[in-house]
């Protein structure tokens, strides 16, 4: 099999791993190698499904001992199997990097013989890249569930980010769909990576030139829609992971039916892309807008609203807190207004130091006025004739991605005057 065929097979096998981030590390070239790392990350191109490509995302091999129900590479599937040699992969990465096609390498693998054996092969590839080719760009390595700590330690010293895919948010889901991956096999490496990184940060304070362990941290991925878990369970798990393991990101991947299996939903269902989108929105609220999961979802309402984004849904349940006066509200309150993002809130707080803000100034702050306009006053003035009821607001705020319905209440956009974007 030539390298073109190997790349096609192993690139296709790796495409369901949605992580594409290259951010979190700022590293300048040391003058003796090739490459650097950019703190905010760089996107190089976009595939036809709209996803960003910034890394060479491949499996080292798609030969696998495990038989996870949802996976295209499971051992009971009859597909073309291939494997890179470490030298081939290192050459390919360097060639693509020198042409500025990629920021670095994303290396995952099927389980060849055993998790430890596979990890040793991955380590050999990364050592070739770092020490022989002197590659100083970004490397994201996947840790195989069940790998021993000694090998994880070596992997973390070579890679910028190491991640373990949790795939299912409950133990029952994992037992059903991926029986060879035990809870301990996943949680063990995650705990090790988190604790080792903490210890490394202390080391770096004491010795500036100590070797760095996973500077870009740890992330994980959950499949959405393969098992009957509710959004509340998925997001509670995410919140726990962020707090306990200091994860950088949790990725949510809509289940794409590949395999016919009694344990999985039927093949004909479309992937739950809207649900995945709402989960990402709720994840952002937890990480940047200081929401707690219990504010967004409760046991009697365990799923996110598909018609409205989670922030609007929360605001409609707490209308007693609105409208908010832009010139007086503190930063935390501004963050909670639908249509005001983190940057807009900071701009408002900075601008109002010099003078009182008026409705005419709002267009400079990049608010989403068609949402925020209903929840704010500026200098005591509200943008419409009267504050609408919860039902009318719900119709007005309904996402174009959700259902579109005619509003029975005659609140015309012209009444908003200068609050409404022209």
């Amino acid at each position, binding site marked *: 099999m030539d390298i073109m065929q190997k790349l096609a097979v192993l690139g296709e096998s790796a495409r369901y791993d949605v992580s594409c981030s290259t951010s979190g590390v700022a590293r300048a070239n040391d003058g003796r190698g090739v490459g650097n790392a950019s703190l905010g990350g760089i996107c190089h191109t976009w595939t036809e499904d*709209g996803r960003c490509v910034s890394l060479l995302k491949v499996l080292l091999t798609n030969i696998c001992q495990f038989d996870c129900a949802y996976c295209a590479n499971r051992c009971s599937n009859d597909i073309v199997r291939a494997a890179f040699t470490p030298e081939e992969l290192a050459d390919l990465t360097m060639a693509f990097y*020198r042409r500025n096609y990629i920021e670095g390498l994303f290396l995952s693998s099927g389980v060849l013989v055993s998790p430890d054996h596979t990890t040793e092969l991955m380590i050999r590839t990364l050592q070739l890249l770092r020490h022989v080719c002197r590659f100083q760009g970004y490397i994201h390595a996947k840790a195989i569930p069940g790998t021993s700590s000694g090998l994880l330690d070596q992997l973390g010293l070579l890679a910028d980010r190491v991640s373990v895919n949790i795939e299912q948010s409950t133990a029952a889901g994992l037992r059903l769909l991926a029986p060879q991956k035990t809870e301990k096999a996943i949680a063990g490496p995650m705990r090790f990576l988190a604790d080792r990184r903490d210890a490394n940060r202390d080391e770096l304070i004491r010795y500036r030139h100590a070797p760095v362990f996973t500077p870009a941290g740890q992330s994980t991925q959950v499949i959405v829609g393969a098992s009957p878990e509710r959004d509340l369970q998925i997001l509670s798990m995410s919140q726990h992971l962020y707090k306990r393991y200091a994860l950088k990101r949790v990725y949510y991947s809509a289940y794409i039916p590949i395999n016919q299996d009694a344990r999985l939903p039927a093949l004909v269902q479309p992937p739950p892309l809207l649900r995945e989108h709402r989960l990402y929105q709720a994840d952002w609220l937890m990480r940047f807008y200081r929401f707690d999961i219990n504010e967004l979802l409760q046991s009697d309402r365990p799923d996110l609203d598909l018609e409205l984004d989670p922030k609007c849904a929360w605001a409609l349940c707490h209308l007693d807190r609105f409208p908010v006066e832009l010139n007086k509200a503190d930063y935390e309150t501004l963050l909670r207004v639908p249509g005001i993002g983190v940057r807009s809130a900071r701009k408002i707080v900075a601008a109002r130091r010099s003078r009182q803000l008026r409705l005419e100034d709002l267009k400079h702050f990049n608010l989403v006025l068609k949402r925020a306009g209903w929840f704010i006053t500026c200098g005591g003035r509200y943008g419409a004739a009267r504050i609408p009821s919860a039902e009318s607001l719900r119709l007005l705020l309904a996402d174009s991605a959700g259902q579109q319905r005619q509003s029975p209440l005659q609140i015309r956009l012209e009444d908003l005057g200068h609050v409404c974007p022209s």
Partner: protein
Amino acid sequence: MFVLHEPSFDGLLSAVAWCLRQREERPVLLSGLSEPLLLPASSIPVEAGIRRLFRRHLAACLGQAAADDVLKQVFSAFLSEEDGIGTRIYRFLFLALLHKRDPSAQLQDPDIAAVVRAAARVGGQAHQFLGLLRFRLLQDQLYLAEFEPDYHVLPLILSHFMDRLQDQHFVICDRKRGIAAWHQPGRGCSLHIMEDVQKPADQSVALPPGQPVKDGADLPARQSAFDFEQLWQRYLKQLTIPERRNPKLQQANLPKKYWKYLVEQPLNSTWPDQK
């Protein structure tokens, strides 16, 4: 009062300094390359060390960090090459020195808003090109990249590639403006005016004279056997998940104006065929 300055950033700063010293009321700053005016105008030469002077004065008013931010923002706004940006930059710096505060927060003022927005647009496009620039390996171990940016972003992206590809001979050509930057390992980067701007991209570029011929590949022999452009195109084709196909989202992130110099461009079936 019309003030003509040299088309470089130092020229603009020299004109701004002159207006500040003369306490000009509402000057209009124009780049010297514009059409000749019928009205009387003062022509200001470039002052030596003008950037250092501005950095010192701004640091005294705003602090070192804020001064660097202001100058960076002003430089990016200047690279947008918009009409009237010179006058707006003058007002921006005037307000910075007057109020002893970074004026970027005062977006109510139209001049400040224009400068901040221009800087953001230029910075945004520069960041895009960090990812969209594609190098081709020519003979003699030279990597060539071409692009046609809306704004003059070459100065902003150069330091990134000089750091990243410090052991590579490369040339980055701005085809729209006819400027090429030529990097030689260990000898830094030099800027050249391209002789044949009108030549289409697939013909050879007029390289700067004296470019060294490097024999004996520093790449291992097996690498040169592969066509890495084809490998990249094949790889991208396999990456698409058919159930998630969304060409509109792809185009929103990757506008058509960038497709011309992207190696992977002939791949997508919705893209027009190229000969």
